[in-house]
């Protein structure tokens, strides 16, 4: 009986260590490979770097914002962002009239913000009268290419465009009318090129000069191709995290958290001795399960999320502390150790449940109202609290019982109680 219990205890410890090892380091046996759970958890943009932009559609009195326009705006933005070649861009509508754009690990935030921020209303304007001849809607195709530069000496990047049949017709008439004069090409009322009409253009094909680089010409072509936003979008907030800075904060925070957690482990052993060690083993399982659950939920780990995770360890200890103190109370009433453990766990359960449920209430509210990284904090804390209740109540109990049956855990003094009555 004694040795059987101890073997079982050791088996549990080994199993927990095994799971913990997989969670942090993964496993690779022959052709089977298990990726570490830590690799499956997505990092927030504050840790991996990237740009988050919150945009709001501006109502015009005669042209209110509606669902259909917002959807078109999202599609337009998506097309523009595709040229950036960002992996996993996320474009989501927030509420009625807002759009959030997330671009992970982007190297050149300036260019991205240029592309996102513009309404991109393209207009060809007759200089003499100020009349708009054609707009971006009349453009069928636009692409960047090299063309002989105006001085004839080299090649310059341009945007070659092709108009729709109606556009071509309007353009032909306008070039006829304005021969020798200037037709300005404007983007959001800013002139990008002011060419002089040399001859009539009947086929609706032409080029826009004035781009400084091929990349700039490419972006302009994208803006024209994707078309103008159906509603002007105002930038409410921009967050850009440099990838290197993000990686640094991830490393440093994980280190800080690890040290904090190790100190808690030491404290528990110092104060509660053998049961303290049991609590620590349970905490390892707790951390492991939390990582697996976060990976399974596809949760995003943010910087405050790491804080939440570390904090939740401090709080997870609480369930164990409540149980151990409860067992001591029962022992003081003169019960046997086995009976004390049994009733200690039973009576501690409701206390632990009530105490943790309020944390869940607070975190749920935080999740509902919070934004971005703060949500990550709420999620890790909720997951942490639930799992800590489970591990403390089940695993700690089983291990404590096995230790008692194995004769390693005998009485009061094993709970670090000094001055026993």
């Amino acid at each position, binding site marked *: 009986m004694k040795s059987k219990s101890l073997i079982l205890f050791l088996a549990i410890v080994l199993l927990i260590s095994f799971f913990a090892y997989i969670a942090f380091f993964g496993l690779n046996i022959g052709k089977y490979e298990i990726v570490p759970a830590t690799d499956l958890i997505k990092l927030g943009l504050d840790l991996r770097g990237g740009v988050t932009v919150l945009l709001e559609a501006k109502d015009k009195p005669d042209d209110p914002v509606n669902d259909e326009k917002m959807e078109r705006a999202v599609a337009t933005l998506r097309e523009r962002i595709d040229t950036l070649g960002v992996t996993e861009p996320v474009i989501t509508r927030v509420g009625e009239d807002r759009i959030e754009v997330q671009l992970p690990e982007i190297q050149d935030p300036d260019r991205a913000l240029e592309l996102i921020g513009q309404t991109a209303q393209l207009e060809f304007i007759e200089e003499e009268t100020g009349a708009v001849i054609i707009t971006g809607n009349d453009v069928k195709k636009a692409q960047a290419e090299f063309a002989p530069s105006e001085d004839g000496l080299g090649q310059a990047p341009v945007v070659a465009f092709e108009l729709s049949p109606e556009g071509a017709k309007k353009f032909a008439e306008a070039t006829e009318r304005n021969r020798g004069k200037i037709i300005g090409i404007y983007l959001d009322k800013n002139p990008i090129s002011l060419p002089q009409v040399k001859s009539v253009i009947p086929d609706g094909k032409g080029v826009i000069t004035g781009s400084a680089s091929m990349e700039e010409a490419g972006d302009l072509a994208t803006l024209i191709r994707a078309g103008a936003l159906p509603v002007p979008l105002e*930038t409410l907030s921009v967050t*850009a995290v*440099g990838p290197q800075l993000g990686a640094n904060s991830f490393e440093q925070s994980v280190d800080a958290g690890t040290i*904090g957690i190790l100190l*808690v482990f030491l404290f528990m052993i110092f104060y509660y001795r053998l049961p303290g060690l049991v609590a620590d083993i349970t905490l390892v399982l707790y951390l492991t399960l939390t990582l697996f659950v976060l990976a399974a939920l596809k949760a995003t780990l943010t*910087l405050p999320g790491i804080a939440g995770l570390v904090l939740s360890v401090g709080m997870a200890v609480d369930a164990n*502390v409540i149980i151990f103190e409860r067992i001591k109370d029962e022992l003081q009433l003169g019960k046997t150790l086995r009976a004390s453990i049994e009733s200690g766990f039973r009576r501690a359960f409701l206390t632990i449940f009530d105490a943790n449920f309020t944390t869940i*209430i607070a975190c749920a509210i935080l999740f*509902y109202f919070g934004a971005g990284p703060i949500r990550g904090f709420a999620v890790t804390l909720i997951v942490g609290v639930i799992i800590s209740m489970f591990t403390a109540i089940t695993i700690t109990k089983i291990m404590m019982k096995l230790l008692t049956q194995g004769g390693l855990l005998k009485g009061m003094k094993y709970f670090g109680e000094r001055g026993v009555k």
Partner: protein
Amino acid sequence: MKTLNVMGYKKIWFGISLTLLAIGLVFLLINGGLNLGMDFTGGSSIHANIGKTFEVSEIRDIMDKYDPSATITHAGQNKDQVIIRTKISFDNEKRIEIMKAFSDKYSIEAKDISFESIGPTVGKELAMQSLTALLLAFLGIMIYVSFRFEWRFGLASLTALIHDVLIMVAAYAVLQIPVNSTFIAALLTIIGYSINATIVIFDKIRENIKSERSRKMDYDSIVNVAVNQTLTRSINTSLTTLITIFALYFLGVPAIKDIAFPMIVGVLSGCYSSVLLASPLWVALRRRFKVS
């Protein structure tokens, strides 16, 4: 073991709390309110890893053109990073200019620079949402405790919670640390955390009332016994939580410090209010509103 006479010295506990809150209020009046950060007022922040030591005046020279009132602080373990905060929400053009000035002077790349810019609209919403969230949290917890225990326990724990929130606000009023959304997150976490300890104690009080031994005891003694029975737990749990938060505070990056600091204040206040304030409040309520 020495016991803590919670009920006997209740005037002292309340006195200490009221004094701290009064100090907070005075500072609040002197400073004309809290120092609201960019999350609430709108504004910009730039965090750059310069990679070598630098003088604040060098950065000031760059920033003067854009906002002479910008706050500039060192960050990072080797003091080789800078954090600049301004109340102006820079547009893309201005931002690119500033970034260029930095990369020209210190030859750093985009990957070493973070920036954030928030317009005033978002800030106003955040203030509204934060208040709603706080009220909802208070309400939710009050209802839950009243449902699981009874309304006097609910009201007493709610008062202790409001105390903790006010202490945290007082700390920010005195130190004039910018209040941002992380502060709100810390407030809500502390609300969830502090009630934890209160519930454990109330649970013990309720249990003791039912027991044989307490038949001849008055409420003061019942509370004293219950608080002392749970004292080890109250202290140990606060200690383990504090250990982790202190590690984050001393070893973490600025963004983590922003959330760790208010939590340190909150955990200390939460421990204090749960052990020393909540139960005497409950006894007072119990006497005032007797069960018929």
